[in-house]
């Protein structure tokens, strides 16, 4: 199990296409996606709902295995789930019958001594700022706190890539903003590659080194927009607003421009 904490690897997505069979019809979801994510990079993926962006993430995680194209992590062709790719879902998905520390410990494999386990779990609870809740049960925590536990659980194996599938989508606006700052802090501390799927344009810009804009179904990577803004980013700065405008126009050009000028 030496691949854990091995040298950082590039995530390469090559010619990825996916279609679902519904009754006798095929619905094409993803069409020929190419993407390369360098080690330590934070990439946001944004697209209209139902465009298959979550499916893309599930394929990288190894949960979906029926597709055309290839996904590599370093030289390894991805064929199924492995602990070198961690995932956080929209819901925290904590096990209600386990305490917070045991939920985090569940992420770890068998190859750790009890002492090591304890230390790693404590470290990660510290990282997400929930040390004092170690003995609590999930239902005693707020939604935002539960999601932080879920992030800790995904991080205990020191994954090469952390996949975030609309992780803050179910949280209220205030909690979401603090969680976005939190994830940047964790990312800077852990230096993992992060792939984030979101439908929140501001979130995508605030977090990502690059923003991948996907089109409607069948989705293609319509534009990849680099965000060269220093962190911490100011959502109201001129540059930020400019980027937001670019993405807006990308998004709505094919449907309608929602803020068309009328005199």
């Amino acid at each position, binding site marked *: 199990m030496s691949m854990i904490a091995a040298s950082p690897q590039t995530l390469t997505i090559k010619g990825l296409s996916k279609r679902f069979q519904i009754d006798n019809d095929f619905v094409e979801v993803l069409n020929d996606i190419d993407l390369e994510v360098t080690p330590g990079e934070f990439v946001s993926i944004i697209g209209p709902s139902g465009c298959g962006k979550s499916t893309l993430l599930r394929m990288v*995680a*190894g*949960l979906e295995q029926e597709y055309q194209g290839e996904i590599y992590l370093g030289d390894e062709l991805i064929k199924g*789930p*492995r*602990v070198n*790719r*961690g*995932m956080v*879902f929209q*819901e925290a*998905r904590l*096990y*209600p*019958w*386990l305490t917070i520390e045991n939920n985090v410990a*569940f*992420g770890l*494999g068998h190859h750790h001594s009890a002492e090591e386990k304890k230390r790693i779990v404590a470290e990660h609870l510290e990282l997400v700022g929930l040390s004092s809740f170690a003995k609590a*049960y*999930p*239902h005693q925590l707020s939604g935002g706190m539960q999601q932080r536990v879920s992030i800790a659980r995904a991080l205990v*194996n020191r994954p090469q890539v952390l996949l975030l599938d609309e992780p803050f989508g179910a949280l209220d606006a205030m909690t979401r903003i603090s969680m976005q700052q939190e994830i940047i802090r964790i990312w800077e501390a852990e230096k993992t590659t992060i792939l984030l799927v979101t439908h929140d344009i501001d979130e995508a810009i605030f977090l990502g080194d690059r923003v991948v804009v996907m089109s409607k179904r069948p989705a293609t990577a319509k534009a990849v927009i680099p965000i060269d803004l220093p962190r911490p980013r100011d959502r109201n700065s001129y540059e930020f607003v400019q980027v937001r405008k670019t993405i807006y126009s990308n998004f709505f050009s094919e449907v309608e421009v929602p803020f068309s000028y009328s005199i």
Partner: protein
Amino acid sequence: MKKIGSWLRENLLALVVPILLLSVWEAAGQLGWIRAALLPRPSAIAQVLVELIASGELFIHLGISILRVGQGFLIGAFLGVLVGVQIALVKKFRIALSLIFGVLRPIPVIAWIPVLILWMGIDEGSKITVIAIGSFWTVLVSVVQGIRSVDKKYLEVATILEKDQKTLLTKVVLPAALPAIFTGVRVGIDVAWRSVVAAELIAAASGIGYMIMYARELSQIDVVLVGVLSIGLTGVLIDQLLLLLEKRLLKWNVNLHES
């Protein structure tokens, strides 16, 4: 003490109504409106109850019945969990057994009693088997339901984390199914308790069902009634004990605390 006080305030009616009924019954008996040979007064029944407790007769018979339930239920529930897990998880197993189980399951436990008496006589064996059959089905159904309705999202988390089948079963599937399994166990013990009385009524030389039948032959209606009512009281007691156990074991189950 405070707890008992607030419980009393909330559930006063639960006590008042039975007391009221008992007094009407008592009064009707005193006034000679009810024939004592058919329905003795509550005070007379209470007197017999005290006598039966004092002589130890009631508790000996109840004890024998409870022991039978305990043995039969353990066997039935164990097999129910074992087979239930296989049926829920192994598709081939499920298909192989579907027709057989479909035919066997609707048979009332009581219908097995004559068969078992012919096979095993009227000893302990036949009674314990009846109880085991009765509790087997309820536990089996709840285990299968419980496991099959485990949230797929929980399973995905374990898949992502590369957990093996054993960990998946013991750490995720079974805990998630435990509330449903527990409900099945409670219903199962209820069924077991009913089956034992039925078996003892038909053929036995001891147990609470036997005590009732024997008293009927001697036309001791008061003893019969004490026996019948003690079955109900024991049932309530068993159910409460299980509820306590469930609260202990399933501390995490929020739904439980609210009810």
